[in-house]
């Protein structure tokens, strides 16, 4: 039996070794998928000096914020980490937590439906495929679905993309764009610009149908403020300022879901060490400024939203500034 077990273990080890080699040479630079931008965003996060403004959130953030203008107006480098709401709040926060440094300002703009507390396992899986290091931001609750039950799919996809990338290196071909808003549509700050100047993809009357969709679970989910509270406390202890800005919405959404949105706002304002820089009403935009959904602003919409953010954040950066340096537990 010992011989059999040793042989089996050696076989498994050989396969793991081969996978490790594959991973070592895994090159995502030619990937054109929208979600592959996660690799670029993390690279910028690692190389941008503090004090920084790090913007977090779902796709409302890359679609609707002009980081270069924010950088100029607030005189601090900006990293737009926002990519996709389906990653879920826990993942977004864990993504930046290890790289936060004293003096940073974190600005979160979470979509209203994300206050239901959910995540999309397929999106998370893709984020790991395009940047395997993202796997370390998974939480135990992600583990069963993503690793134990569907882990082989992720490994297989990495193997396929790795082989495709090697072939492309020899044939100088990139992978075909899988979305009409590809990775190359992001600028160096991490803002999406591919949709600027493009015709809107949704008629005004249709916007009524794609506006805010409340999640099926409890909304707002009481777990979300708890997660935010924990993160805010951690930021405070590390001398990082944590702020929240509401996502953009057409007026109709706020009228339809007034009570839920009010509850969300109240719960956010009750969180210690979280600075809520605006209100849902401030982030209401003319329906003509939305590109394809009730969260994605067009170029002019993004300009307007950035103006509003500059106005809200300038006093924070000038007067409030970053939090005082953290005091260690023993008082030194």
């Amino acid at each position, binding site marked *: 039996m010992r011989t059999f077990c040793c042989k089996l273990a050696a*076989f498994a080890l050989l396969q793991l070794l081969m996978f490790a080699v594959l991973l070592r040479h895994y090159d995502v630079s030619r990937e054109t998928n929208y979600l592959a931008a996660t690799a670029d965003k993390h690279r910028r996060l690692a190389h941008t000096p503090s004090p920084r403004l790090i913007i977090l959130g779902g796709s409302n953030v890359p679609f609707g914020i002009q980081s270069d203008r924010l950088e100029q107006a607030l005189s601090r480098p900006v990293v737009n980490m926002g990519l996709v709401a389906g990653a879920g709040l826990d993942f977004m926060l864990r993504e930046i937590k290890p790289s936060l440094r004293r003096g940073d300002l974190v600005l979160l703009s979470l979509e209203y439906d994300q206050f239901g507390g959910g995540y999309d396992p397929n999106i998370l899986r893709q984020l790991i495929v395009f940047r395997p290091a993202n796997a370390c931001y998974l939480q135990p609750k992600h583990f069963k679905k993503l690793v134990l039950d569907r882990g*082989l*799919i992720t490994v297989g996809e990495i193997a396929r993309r790795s082989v495709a990338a090697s072939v492309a290196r020899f044939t100088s071909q990139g992978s075909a764009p899988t979305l009409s808003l590809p990775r190359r549509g992001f600028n160096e700050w991490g803002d999406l610009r591919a949709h600027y100047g493009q015709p809107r993809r949704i008629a005004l009357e249709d916007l009524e149908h794609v506006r805010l969709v409340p999640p099926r679970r409890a909304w707002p989910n009481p777990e979300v403020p708890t997660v935010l509270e924990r993160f805010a406390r951690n930021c405070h202890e590390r001398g990082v300022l944590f702020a929240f800005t509401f996502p953009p919405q057409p007026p109709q959404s706020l009228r339809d879901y007034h009570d839920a949105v009010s509850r969300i706002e109240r719960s956010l304002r009750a969180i210690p060490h979280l600075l809520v820089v605006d209100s849902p009403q401030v982030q209401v935009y003319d329906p003509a400024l939305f590109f394809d959904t009730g969260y994605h602003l067009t170029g002019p919409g993004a300009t307007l939203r950035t103006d509003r953010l500059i106005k809200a954040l300038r006093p924070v950066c000038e007067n409030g500034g970053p939090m005082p340096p953290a005091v260690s537990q023993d008082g030194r």
Partner: protein
Amino acid sequence: MSFASVVFFLFLPVVFCLHYCSSRRQWQNGVLLAASYFFYGWWDYRFCGLMLFSSLLDYAIGQKLATARHATQRRSLLVLTLASNLGLLGFFKYFNFFADSLVLALAAVGVDVNPTTLPIVLPVGISFYTFQTLSYTLDIYRGQLQPRRNLVEYLTFVSFFPQLVAGPIERATHLLPQFAAARKFSPEAAAEGCRLILWGLAKKMVLADNLGGIVDSAFGHAASASGAALALATVCFAFQIYCDFSGYSDIAAGTARLFGIQLVRNFAYPYFAQSLSEFWRRWHISLSTWFRDYVFIPLGGSRDTVERTSRNLLLTFLLSGLWHGAAWHFVAWGALHGLYVVASRWLSRGAPAERPAVPGGESLLPSLLVLWRMLRTFVLVCAGWILFRADSLPTAWEICRRIAVQGLSLDFYASLWRLVAEHQIVLVVLGLFVAAEWLGRFEWNPLPIRRLPLPARWLSYTALFWVILYLGTQRSADFIYFQF
């Protein structure tokens, strides 16, 4: 827990090591029992309660049957086991089907009834373990088996995880004695088990899942799909369901061998069958023999007149269709196969029944006659698969009509060729698989790898492993038979 998941490959070595920690039978059975309930509970822990209830009930009935002296008492116990097992199966699997059908039937005669449907979740594998526990009590009733005193042994027999959710449906007379003795580790059996697991995974993940993409795109849009797309999808479905189910059976058999348990063979190259009767001797053998022994033969089998035999066959196949799913198209699929078998018996009356030991004969290439018979059988089986895969009877009829009508024009074949070219990778792999099966049909599975030297074996296993990972993870789908 699915066989095609990371957790299974973490779970299996742990159970394997724990199982052989001790050579005591009680320990080994205890480990397998705990592992089986963990395996089953991974889907939904509530399902475990139902399985335990069903198992305990049959255990108790089995004990009572052994001590019952009067025929009436024994018959009452038989009725009780049938009513409880089929009642549970009927409630979870067929309640809504029968309720809906009753409402439709009453509406047809002008009686309007408010439909009562319940949000019932079908416990995974209920059809399989119900038939297994039922066979236990039926065998005791028939005097073919002594009831087990050891409850752990019996519970392990019912819940043995490799074959729990999709078979093979084991008979107590075959499986229980294997739990009654301690298992010794056999390196040859364990190596063969690993090979079977790898081969089963390749069939499921590389072929079944990728063919499923072609099938779903045509059958999922049956109203708008072309006749050529539907014809190709039908052939692909024939291989999808075969690779899916026989792949599961291979993994089950391979896993069981790691624990020193031999499961019955479930598939024996069914698509090389030359007649429908032969097909049913090679397809889902454990279910076919179950229906033969517990339905067909008790109904009278083929001992009586031709008419009675035909009736018995039809009834058996109708029930087999209903076992597969709570919908009329499954019943129609069973009825069609019943008619096939009855018709072939009528047509071949007087002729001696051919039972080739090797499917398709022993020569390297089949004769034209054998090839014609195999193709004819395959086409008839495919016609049945349309009923099986379609959402409803009208859809199945429309698919058949479109294939038949459009098949008369040349455009059909041009379109078919385009589709084949579009899916060339998976279809080439399928061709290689059929060739491997043909060449390896003399043995249980077409894996001659064990005769190769060690480096060549490892190279083959590594290649197969990476092919599975590369081609077999583009779609993720559960095993088809889980839903039954």
